[in-house]
């Protein structure tokens, strides 16, 4: 399924209240934009910054909307498009590569029936290829919602990981 088919998240009153709390925790300080965006993204079930939210922030923080999009598009941890409940970030840097991370890529594509940057029909998983996240001692590794899963050297271990998430 293509990512663009997912319905855009709507800025409800409830979400706005939660965002206000995040802003307060960051002292409504526009210079803390990167941290604010990360916190909001964690709050949104699909882990991205919906357009409405970006505009809401621009107004609240008195920051230009272009600055906000400059940040979201610059940083790879921030996303303008919806991701899954479990975005699976597969490390594609050299240590994981020489530890046969291709097993992870092929196994996950096979098990989930999707390609890189696609989402499963139930909206639970996306597959992303990312740069080294400093877990090279556990290579090959993936990272899901901030948690690292290492030593994924066989299909069995990868199946195990998926069943842990479900």
């Amino acid at each position, binding site marked *: 399924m293509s990512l663009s088919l997912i319905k855009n998240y709507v800025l409800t009153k409830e979400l706005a209240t939660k965002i206000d709390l995040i802003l307060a925790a960051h002292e409504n*300080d*526009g*210079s*803390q*934009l*990167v*941290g604010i*965006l*990360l916190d909001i993204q964690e709050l949104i079930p699909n882990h991205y910054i919906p357009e409405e939210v970006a505009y809401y922030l621009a107004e609240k923080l008195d*920051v230009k909307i272009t*600055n906000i999009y*400059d*940040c979201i598009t*610059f*940083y*790879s*941890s*921030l996303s303008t498009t919806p991701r899954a409940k479990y975005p699976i970030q597969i490390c*594609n*840097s*050299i*240590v994981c*590569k*020489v*530890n046969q991370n291709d097993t992870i890529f092929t196994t996950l594509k096979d098990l989930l029936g999707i390609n890189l940057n696609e989402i499963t029909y139930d909206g639970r998983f996306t597959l992303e290829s*990312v*740069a*080294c*996240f*400093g*877990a*090279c*001692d556990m*290579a090959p590794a993936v*990272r899901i919602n*901030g*948690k690292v899963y290492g030593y994924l050297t066989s299909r069995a271990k990868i199946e195990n990981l998926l069943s842990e998430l479900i």
Partner: protein
Amino acid sequence: MSKTVSFITKNFGKYDVSSIGSYMECGGFDALKKAITLSGEEIAGIVAAAKIKGRGGAGYDMGRKLAQAKSVIAEKKVVICNADEGEPCTFKDRMLLENDPFNLIESMIITGYTVDAEDGYIYLREEYCHLRPLLLNAIRQAKTYGFLGTNILGKGFNFEIHLYSGAGAYVCGEGTALIESIEGKAGRPRMKPPFIKQCGLYNRPTCVNNVESLSLLSHILLDEDKEYQTYGMGDSIGTKLISVAGNVKHPGVFEIPFGTTVREIVYDLAGGIDGDRPIRLLQFGGASGKIASSKILDTPYTYEDLKRSGVTVGSGAILVIDDRTSLIEFLQSTQEFFSHESCGQCTPCREGNRHMKLFLQKLADGTHTDKDIKSMKKIAKLMAMSSLCGLGETAQSALVSAMNQFEDVFHVKSSEVQE
């Protein structure tokens, strides 16, 4: 014989990392108490005498950096702890953050005192967000105990520590990009001058140090018996945290005295190569580092000896790759990393990386010509000389060192394909 030592790692496992009381029971904040009896110049002098070079990659003399930061006259100065650790194969700062967070906080306070800064910032990479609660807790407790805030230890010294998150951009490890990011912008490096030591975060004089460099500070101040100086070899005094990974049996972080040979590191500490296969290549200091063949195994790990062998300490990473990966595959992977991480704002880096990609593809296909090699060398030189920041300057170092050390791989196969 045990080849590792415990100097910077001496607190690992000794205290409960969530409790300042536990940290203080094993001597926590003694270094700060000692520091405030000294002047900033004296502290910078002690660091200079220990000949500590910055551990973030560039290896700048830390004592000198502190003395310079102290000497700048300004109303408000800033110290930053660079915890962006983004160099592939580097994970030693992670170990320090996980196992000794209070020591980092204490060392930052001492650094603030040394250079007369009022604000300290920790820039933690997003990938280490699981360490945020640990650091926030350490900061909060230090504040409760009066080690942060106003009039610290009754010395009229004020200092606060703020924790900022990265968001997945390797280039933000570069000082000016890091500052842009803390200011709430995309992390594109700034043009220099002005240098951040004069005009950095919010235009204030700023002193950026790596996690490991900072962490050393408390230990050095308390090292009255000069234990640190007993380690090392030649001008490389002391110990170093290294992260070894790749095709080794026991990847990990080790504290070694400078002078340990690369062979001892790879075969004794990291357990040798998976399946006892032959080594294809070693890379020192992360993706921006240079590479060497197994001929380097008997070289002692010191700044000088590594330099003589054509590589550098860099971030302290050692990547070991066996014969299952070809040199070209390795270079392509490294190149892909830089293409992905380049911020794209300056031409030598942006276009140089594209050129490198095309060149490596030709090399992989065996269709490269003498002319390609010549132009690749020229572009690599251009990147090193005229990129705006260290990313573009070093993106070519693996390739250029490969051309020097593994000439046969670049051999032009057929003269017919040449124009």
